[in-house]
């Protein structure tokens, strides 16, 4: 396997106070590695949206980031409810978030579209009742 920096995080599904910690840590690492701000920002946006989705839709999960010289690969893996209709979920503005979640500033239905927009590659593996794994790749 090619050399890379691997960072792993448990994303707590019950705790909004720590939501965003994994993305923040990856962002800090990329900055320290001297990755240009433009790419750091793309990664931060895409990963934060994915991390938040695990918190608000899937009772948390695991985030894994693999940093290579020319790109980053991010895996967001949860054992939540899964997504029944991925095309529908990808639509800008589509959200199943509750009023309570929306009052916290989430649930604009822009998470998956943002992840698509700010990554160079995105794949979603999901099964209802089993969980969801999202892979995001951002090229530097």
């Amino acid at each position, binding site marked *: 396997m090619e050399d890379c920096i691997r960072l792993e995080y448990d994303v707590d599904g019950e705790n*909004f106070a720590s939501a965003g910690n994994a993305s923040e840590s990856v962002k800090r690492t990329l900055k320290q590695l001297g990755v240009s701000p433009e790419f750091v920002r793309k990664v931060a946006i895409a990963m934060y*949206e994915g991390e938040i989705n695990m918190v608000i839709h899937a009772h948390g999960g695991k985030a894994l980031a693999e940093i290579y010289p020319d790109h980053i690969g991010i895996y967001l893996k949860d054992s939540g409810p899964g997504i029944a209709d991925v095309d529908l979920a990808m639509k800008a503005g589509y959200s199943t978030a509750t009023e309570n979640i929306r009052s916290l500033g*989430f649930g604009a239905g822009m998470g998956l579209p*943002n992840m698509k927009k700010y990554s160079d590659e995105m794949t979603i593996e999901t099964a209802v009742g089993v969980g969801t794994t999202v892979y995001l790749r951002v090229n530097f």
Partner: protein
Amino acid sequence: MNVSQFVKEAGCTVFSEGEDRAIESGYCGDFLSNIISRATDACAWLTVMNNVNVAAVATLIDCACVLLCEGVAPDEAFAARAASLGIWVLGTKENVFEACKTVARICNV
């Protein structure tokens, strides 16, 4: 204009402090997905949102400061996270529109 100077001139409340950087632009919004993808670097982010996720998003977007409008004050979790992340969180009684005008006038943005 730097955040500390803005605080003096605008007479804002200071809930937590961070690096004293220049405010170079502004962004208003409460939906975190909009903010994270659209707010510009070194902006003053004006919001009425009061919860801990504001602190996380503020770090991710590298804003110069968060300005809580309409008399909003951070709750305990938000204040603690902002302090530990080193984020300027300011407060004003003005509504978002009036606060925008204040930022624009004082910071010339």
